[in-house]
């Protein structure tokens, strides 16, 4: 069966294109309205007001007050600031941090560094779906615990964590609760009050905003050391001339994503299910992550007998852009720690494929992916020594 090659971007969890209306809104702040918000003259006032509007937009999308929003360079900086800023500010009270085994590197590597600085970190295990059990969180709390950090939704397998329950437990024990909401913001509803969240990280380029932008929500009253010292920007909490065009773009992108969320969730969930059932029709294939407590746009499967990087290379030749958690494809040479934590067995862990949909993804794109992946998997299975006879094409 020959299908015409089409370009299908299926890696929205890695990054997204900025929306045209967002880019249009940003440009003036790089050109005529280029003023530094800290300056006294009139052209600066326009920038200052634009930043304030963006702050209102971000705050409204997560149920926070505007003065609880601090702009950063992205999710990684927000995660670093939340962990390091709280750890050092509260070192007098205790030195224990609780996090999970499925966090993004910006959390796990920062925790590893904090361990080298004398902090103790508990990495909570997860179930087969990659989900943290709030009971385990509570059991891990000690008199030394100063911070719990559990992500809202996992970037690899899409599982949505029970953050409201974890937040309630943290609040009950007087421990601060941070959540990395980088994959969640703009995709699922967030209410920092109802979810008892004290700190939250988000990143502009994950919801069709520009790269190099992010925010950290810090609940009023939370003690935290700054990460960036210097000028008095962000109420003295995060030095550096504000990235006005970026901030404007991010605020608009998040507010649009929130306005369109209900409709997009419905549309994307249907596409996701179509993709999942198409892929699960391929024999010896399993879905990673929770089947329903899952980001609307995330699909992650594992194919027995073949390796992920080779799947990606063949898909790329056919116009499909996706990602994998195989050892061969990672910087470290190790397979995905998230898939390991989910208990994916060794003989399947290298054959993972992650496809994440976006606003522009159509049903035709999904069908093309299913057909192409089916063909690619069979090709690679025919090359593999591990494939059992009944799964080989005839003559292979």
């Amino acid at each position, binding site marked *: 069966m020959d299908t015409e090659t089409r370009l299908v971007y299926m890696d929205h969890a890695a990054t997204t294109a900025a929306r045209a209306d967002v880019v249009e809104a940003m440009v003036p702040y790089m050109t005529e309205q280029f003023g530094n918000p800290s300056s006294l003259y009139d052209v600066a006032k326009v920038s200052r007001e634009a930043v304030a509007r963006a702050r209102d937009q971000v705050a409204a999308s997560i149920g926070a007050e505007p003065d609880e929003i601090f702009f950063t360079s992205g999710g990684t900086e927000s995660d670093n600031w939340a962990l390091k800023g709280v750890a050092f500010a509260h070192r007098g009270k205790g030195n224990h941090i609780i996090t999970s085994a499925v966090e993004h590197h910006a959390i796990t590597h920062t925790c590893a560094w904090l361990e080298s600085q004398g902090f103790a970190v508990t990495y909570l295990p997860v179930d087969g779906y990659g989900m943290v059990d709030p009971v385990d969180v509570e059991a891990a709390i000690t008199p030394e615990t100063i911070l719990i950090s559990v992500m809202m939704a996992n970037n690899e397998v899409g599982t949505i964590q029970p953050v409201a329950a974890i937040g309630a437990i943290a609040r009950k024990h007087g421990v601060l609760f941070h959540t990395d909401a980088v994959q969640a913001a703009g995709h699922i509803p967030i209410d920092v009050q109802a979810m008892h969240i004290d700190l939250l990280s988000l990143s502009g380029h994950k919801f069709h905003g520009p790269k190099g932008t992010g925010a950290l929500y810090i609940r009023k009253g939370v003690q935290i050391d700054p990460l960036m010292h210097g000028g008095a920007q962000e109420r003295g909490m995060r030095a550096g001339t504000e990235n006005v065009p970026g901030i404007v773009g991010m605020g608009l992108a998040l507010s649009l994503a929130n306005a369109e969320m209900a409709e997009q969730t419905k549309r994307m969930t249907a596409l996701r299910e179509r993709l999942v059932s198409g892929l699960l029709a391929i024999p010896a294939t399993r879905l990673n992550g929770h089947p329903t407590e899952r980001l609307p746009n995330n699909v992650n499967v594992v194919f027995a*007998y*073949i*390796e992920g*990087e*080779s799947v990606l*290379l*063949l898909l790329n*030749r056919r116009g499909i852009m996706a990602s994998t958690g*195989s*050892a*061969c*494809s990672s910087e470290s*040479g190790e*397979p995905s720690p998230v898939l390991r934590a989910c208990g994916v067995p*060794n003989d399947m*862990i*290298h054959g993972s494929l992650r496809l994440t949909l976006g606003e522009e993804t159509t049903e035709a794109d999904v069908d093309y992916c299913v057909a192409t992946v089916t063909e690619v998997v069979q090709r690679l299975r*025919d*090359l*593999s*020594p*591990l494939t059992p006879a009944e799964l080989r094409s005839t003559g*292979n």
Partner: protein
Amino acid sequence: MYNEKVMDHFENPRNHGEIADADGIGEVVSPDCGDVLKLYLVVEDDVIVDVRCQTFGCGAAIAASSMATELIRGKTLEEAWQVSDQDVVRALDGLPPKKEHCSVLAEEAIHLAINDYRVRQGLEPWGDVVRDLGHEHED
């Protein structure tokens, strides 16, 4: 990441498949990335007259095993034994440094397949002696 020659061997792997009654079989599993390479030989009068391979692995692994089969097809066992991972990488016009370990599997699989043949023939398996001393081996 990969040059056109590697991509060609990856997308059009040479000599893939198995040989039902092969004279020698070598299977190697990489402890790091889990890659698996299985090589099948048909040997006549000390010459490799047919060779097939099956690979579980990344682009580099599939390309390296394909190239390895090309490098040993039609060679004597002694000549095939000398084919090194560097020969495979060179023949592919280079692999990214992180991926060179995939070519080592090819060299090991060739050695295992040749020794499997030798043992089945009641001969002593070869160690690294032939390569280290550069001797012509005598049966």
